[in-house]
């Protein structure tokens, strides 16, 4: 995937990650790379506009703290609004993948 992080299901992925724990930008990139077996490799810089927009929408909030490496990092934390949004996007995503599977699977996935 050489497409940037902007748009698509990125918000869903980020919210889902941040629900587990608080991350700073670089950790998010590493985490997504590992979990997706490097299928999702994107231009790293494009992560930040997405995070910042999510912050201005109130889905996440940020704070500065000293990371394990001893350096100061900007951490992102999911908000209540973010959790609600995550539930909504998950639902949409599931509906979408089910529909795609139905089309791909033909008769086997047909509605009873």
């Amino acid at each position, binding site marked *: 995937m050489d497409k940037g992080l902007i748009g698509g299901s990125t918000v869903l992925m980020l919210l889902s990650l941040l629900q587990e724990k608080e991350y700073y*930008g670089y950790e998010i990139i590493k985490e997504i790379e590992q979990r997706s077996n490097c299928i999702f490799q994107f231009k*790293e810089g494009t992560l930040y506009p997405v995070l910042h*927009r999510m912050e201005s929408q109130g889905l996440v909030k940020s704070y500065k703290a000293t990371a394990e490496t001893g350096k100061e990092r900007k951490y992102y934390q999911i908000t209540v609004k973010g959790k609600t949004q995550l539930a909504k996007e998950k639902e949409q995503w599931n509906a979408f993948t089910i529909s795609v599977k139905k089309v791909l699977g033909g008769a086997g996935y047909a509605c009873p």
Partner: protein
Amino acid sequence: MRVPDWEEYLKQILSHVKFKYDHNHIYFELKNHMEDRYDEFVSEGMEEEQARETVLACMGDADEIGEELNKAHSPFLGWIWRVLKDALILLVILNFLPALSLITSGFISVFESYDEKSDSLLVYSIDVGYREKIYDTTVIIDKILYYEDHTLEVRYATWTNPFSDSIKWSSSIGVTIYDEQGKIQANGNGWKSGSYYGRGQKYCENIPLDATKAVISYGIENEIPIDLKEGRVMANES
């Protein structure tokens, strides 16, 4: 390990972000990211120059990132947020100012001093230092002074939060004096300055030296009793 200079790349990104107040945050966040990436590449054995170039390639196009960041950092919303934040800080300061000034004591003199009564000598004074919040107004009873001509003076101040939208009470106080037998006088003459913040002096005449209690009334049904027997500082002893 020498960390390369990302200045040019970062400046190119920031040149697209119109809301300048966020530049610092963006700069450090992106720079930290690039340093982390660089450190990792080098620790994996990559040549420094190659690591530098790979980091830049990983980051992506500076113009594209800058334009997207600019959308996320709307100057319009940014300014509204800044103004709201400043207003909030001001509000907090205004709310706590009376408390702060009380702590620093002699708070009235910060603004202006009271008029000293010149036609009679002081008999005693009581440092009351009483403070109470009534609705949106803080009433501070500073001092009570008693003079040889049997005048009792109450020095006070009121502080109303200018941002509150509730009723503004008449900012003047009433004083009722009692002795052991009961009520002896209601009210007196006085003056009061200011509307949101104001000091006042109230004079009650013909008050006997052995008066026991002064009840300060403020607004509707708010009464502050002050014991005149306790805390007297006699003028001739000092």
